[in-house]
């Protein structure tokens, strides 16, 4: 067979699988230990400058926005970021905290491209390496399986492949050409869920995006939850626990934690907030003013909720969710 092609993008992080095993053995709590803490403590304890982080699902749906705002508030910089995102990645990138981006999709869907991403890429401030959506999820899956790579049939033959860090390999059984995706293990993963107990047993209602894979590919995992429930509640239907306690390092109570995005079955996205944000983000000054108003100028998530309209607006968003 002719020489196999390889992407020329930088592989930002490759953690040897045995190192991950050693980490899990030495560092992860296997007993049922309470991990409930506030967002400030969770972020300060586990997210350090220069780390590689990832956020699930994405900025307008079931996204740990309160945790992301806290990272920005603490100005933890030099980060590498797994970039399937919208608003959450805008905040991190626009605040100047991101160095490298493994990007799949970063935009506003029907509302178009992100001006924050455009400014960052077009000025060369952020280095991007390309992947597809499935490729990023499968990279987490590879790490979750304790493997250094996973062979798949996406990305082959394209510039997405050429500007990724994937490599083509030959199947040892059939001789077929496959795309080898390097495992991606995160220093810290951030996931927002519907409910969790104080130990971190976490449940998601509706689609689960790539939460299961990312949770298992994160050395440290911070969960924010709409609701903190008694342990007995998760024990009733343990099969609903997508993310078991031993994967989790911190549990943060964050009702409306996905705002201004939606939370399936609970509240609808704050369309007015999103539109006002997008208008602001068109210019660098506008974006910085948004950060000042909604992140730096806000003490914590509870303060954000007061600012976001208080009980009246929040109950409206809950009502809209039931009109699905």
């Amino acid at each position, binding site marked *: 067979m002719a020489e196999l092609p390889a992407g020329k993008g930088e592989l930002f992080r490759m953690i040897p699988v045995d190192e991950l095993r050693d980490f899990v053995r030495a560092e992860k709590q296997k007993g049922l230990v309470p991990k409930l803490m506030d967002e400030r403590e969770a972020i300060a304890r586990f997210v350090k400058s220069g780390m590689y982080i990832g956020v699930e699902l994405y900025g307008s749906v079931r996204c740990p926005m309160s945790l992301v705002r806290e990272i920005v508030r603490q100005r933890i910089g030099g980060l590498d970021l797994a970039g399937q995102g919208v608003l959450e990645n805008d905040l991190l990138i626009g605040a100047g905290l991101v160095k490298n981006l493994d990007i799949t999709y970063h935009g506003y869907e029907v509302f178009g491209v992100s001006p924050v991403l455009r400014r960052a890429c077009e000025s060369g401030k952020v280095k991007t390496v390309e992947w597809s959506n499935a490729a990023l999820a499968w990279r987490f899956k590879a790490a979750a399986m304790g493997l250094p790579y996973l062979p798949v049939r996406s990305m*082959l033959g394209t510039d997405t492949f050429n500007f990724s860090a994937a490599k083509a390999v030959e199947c040892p059984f059939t001789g077929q050409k496959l795309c080898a995706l390097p495992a991606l293990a995160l220093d810290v993963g951030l996931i927002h869920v519907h409910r969790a107990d104080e130990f971190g047993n976490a449940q998601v209602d509706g*689609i689960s*995006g790539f939460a299961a*894979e990312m949770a298992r590919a994160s050395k440290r995992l911070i969960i924010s939850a709409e609701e903190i429930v008694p342990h007995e509640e998760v024990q009733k239907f343990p099969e609903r626990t997508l993310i078991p306690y031993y994967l989790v390092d911190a549990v943060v109570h964050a009702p409306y934690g996905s705002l201004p995005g939606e939370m399936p*079955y609970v509240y609808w996205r704050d369309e007015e907030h999103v539109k006002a944000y997008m208008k602001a983000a068109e210019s660098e000054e506008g974006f910085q003013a948004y950060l000042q108003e909604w992140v730096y100028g806000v003490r914590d998530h509870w303060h954000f909720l007061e600012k976001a309209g208080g009980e009246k607006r929040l109950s409206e968003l809950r009502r809209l969710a039931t009109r699905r």
Partner: protein
Amino acid sequence: MAEYNKSELLICTAAHQMEDNTICFIGTGIPMLAAALAKRTHAPHLMAAFEFGGMGASMERLPLAVGGSRTFHKAASASSICDLMEAAARGFIEYGFLGGAQIDPFGNLNTTVIGDHDRPKVRFPGSGGANDIGSLCWRTIAIMRHGKQRFVPRLDFLTTAGYLDGPGARERAGLPRNTGPYRVVTDLAVLDYDEKTCRMRLRALQPGVTVEQVQAETGFELLIPSRVEQNPPPQPEELRLLREVIDPQRLYT
């Protein structure tokens, strides 16, 4: 004849390409409206698949996002991105609907950059699920506005595989056999691909459009068959459904 705009024409023509009792990957925007329309007209059992895990949503309410709650409202299942993409890898998903900033004569698509990758003139969102859909579905249908800046002889960046550089190229690259681009739906025409050369070919004209107009708005030479079909205009009932039932707030049209 009822008045209609370009978006409505694109939506109706895209809906006509959707086949009952098949599974289609649906992206944000026009494909969502087209799927909602198809389900209310000729394809009630169309299964709309959304890459983050929604499968077979009712489409009673228009989703705003491919991961949003409406993508699994009254759905057959709500799972995960791996589950849906792996279903595509196993051959379950017949059609994938895609958009793009640029398309070339072999149906390759660009949604990544204009200019140099590392210092682009314009940065677009990136592949998202498009590369996977273009790699793994049996047939892909691109939906685009027609224009010379979009229909280009060479892409700035090949985000999603069409027929790559011609016959056999997909298989040589390692992509699943017998897959590839099937149609392009635009506001001027419907296009398909020549079986031998894999090059884009005019198939049908939108109402009131001429062959010359389509060629003039295409930045490369199109194959023109001896017989070109005529697309019907959007029907009054289709327009009523779109305006009054599917998207009454006119978010998309």
